[in-house]
């Protein structure tokens, strides 16, 4: 029964949806202080390459590779976030876009480390490592009536699901706190925020580094799910795609980019023909959203109304 339901292909699609949701959260964090970044593909790439190299060339455990990859991306985010503090809106977008391109060119040119444009293959796979671990404990796929590759896909999916939920919970709590209110104040009116005692430098750099770190984390997971990465995975297309998650879904509340990422990743899988026109559709989406609903599909008002309705029901 279970064995027939578990299709490795669909599980893989779901896994990519989860990774994109994490990327959506990463852009949401940066945007929640009003900073528009097109550098998230670069941060993602740093996490991916760092973890791939550490696990493959230096035989580090996956956990170490992924954590170091994320932290490294966060540190680079810190180094980019500080000098670009004074840049607003589109100027920041251009600067971070330039940063992303520099990173991609570095991936191509540092051949000794990154294998250049060809990319890195045979990166240790999370699922296989997990299943190997389970086998060491004497647990086999056949014990629950699954084939080995089914168990691999299932374990990847479940692990990513848990990680994604934890990340979402983390940032929901942060948003509903003193830190989140400082972020929101800066986004709405930077000058007023600092006049009210908010250290805008600290919180803007914090948000930028957090966003970079989460993107790097997603990149590291991506490397160990596909087992193959190349500079093309972290090009400007990826940066725009991540931003589209937030523009389409909305960036006012965390559910916006989560929905955007899930919907836009699932769509091409459901409608095969769509995939070919993907970037064209992104372009049209951008224009349409900017014209008719610049705040994205899901906004504060919508969440507010839902909450009010729930409150009313609770009372009556």
């Amino acid at each position: 029964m279970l064995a027939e339901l578990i299709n490795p292909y669909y599980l893989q699609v779901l896994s990519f949806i989860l990774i994109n949701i994490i990327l959506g959260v990463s852009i949401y964090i940066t945007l929640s202080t009003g900073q528009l970044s097109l550098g998230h593909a670069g941060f993602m790439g740093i996490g991916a390459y760092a973890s791939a190299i550490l696990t493959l060339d230096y035989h580090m455990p996956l956990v170490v590779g992924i954590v170091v990859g994320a932290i490294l991306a966060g540190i680079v985010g810190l180094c980019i976030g500080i000098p670009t503090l004074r840049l607003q809106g589109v100027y920041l977008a251009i600067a971070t876009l330039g940063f992303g391109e520099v990173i991609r060119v570095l991936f191509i040119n540092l051949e000794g480390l990154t294998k250049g444009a060809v990319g890195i293959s045979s990166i240790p796979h999370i699922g296989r490592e997990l299943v190997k671990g389970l086998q060491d404990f004497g647990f086999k796929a056949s014990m629950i009536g699954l084939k080995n590759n089914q168990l691999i896909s299932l374990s990847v999916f479940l692990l990513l699901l848990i990680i994604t939920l934890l990340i979402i919970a983390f940032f929901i709590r942060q948003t509903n706190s003193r830190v989140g209110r400082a972020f929101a104040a800066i986004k709405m009116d930077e000058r007023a925020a600092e006049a009210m005692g908010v250290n805008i430098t600290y919180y803007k750099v914090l948000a930028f580094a957090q966003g970079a770190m989460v993107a790097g984390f997603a990149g590291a997971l991506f490397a160990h799910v596909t087992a193959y990465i190349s500079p093309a995975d972290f090009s400007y297309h990826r940066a725009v795609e991540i931003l589209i998650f937030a523009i389409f879904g909305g960036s006012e509340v965390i559910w916006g980019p989560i929905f955007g990422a899930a919907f836009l990743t699932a769509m091409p899988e459901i409608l095969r023909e769509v995939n070919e026109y993907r970037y064209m559709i992104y372009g049209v989406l951008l224009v349409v959203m900017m014209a008719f609903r610049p705040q994205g599909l899901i906004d504060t008002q919508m969440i507010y109304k839902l909450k009010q309705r729930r409150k009313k029901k609770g009372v009556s």
Partner: protein
Amino acid sequence: MVLEVRGITKRFGGIQALTDVTFQVGKGEVFGLIGPNGAGKTTMFNIITSMFPPTMGEVIFMGKKLTGLKPHEVTEAGVCRTFQNIRLFPEMTVLENVTVGQHCRTKSGVWSSVFRTGAQKQEEKSIREKALELLRLVGLEELQDTFADNLAYGQQRRLEIARALASDPKLLLLDEPAAGMNESETKDLFDLIQNIKKLGITVLLIEHDMPLVMRICDRLIVLNFGKEIAQGTPEEIKNNPEVIEAYLGREEEEDLA
């Protein structure tokens, strides 16, 4: 002295917005800053709160030099302001706006917020209680869940005062708080400023509503084209011929026109 403004000069390119302005404000005073539009009053507020630096001069607050600090450090030191062109956080509720005002008096960071430590929960509770108390003071308690954007003009002005008070200021700067208010709202504002004064907070007030200014201020300074033309009690100001000519007189002419 709570506030000492020493020889402040400010130039914007060719515009001389302030020229060598000096005044002192004592503890618990309501000190008025008046003068026609463009006189440099708001510029003085921006310099006191370090929104930008003066070209010359310095600002001392309770013995501490404010000039050169970042705006949030000025707020931390105990000086907070409202804005002439209201600058609330429009997509936050009334209550949330006031909680942001408490930012520099609270501590919770990322980790305590994510793990909801006991101290963080306690702090959130006290932030909320204090915000509600301030909303009660300015008469906006009923509207706590309304988005700031949806408030009427006079309510927005009062919310700005509550938000500024949330930072526990020793010195409160009010930039034209009565602008756009009707008569009964202005009367409420008068009572509010009196109450703020009773809390021991020193107030620096920019206002065009002369009857209000004359009734509520202990002392005032009159600026014209960035220069001081008079300083003193409301009685002294009212009878100062230069003031009557430069400011009060012209106001009457405008009224006639």
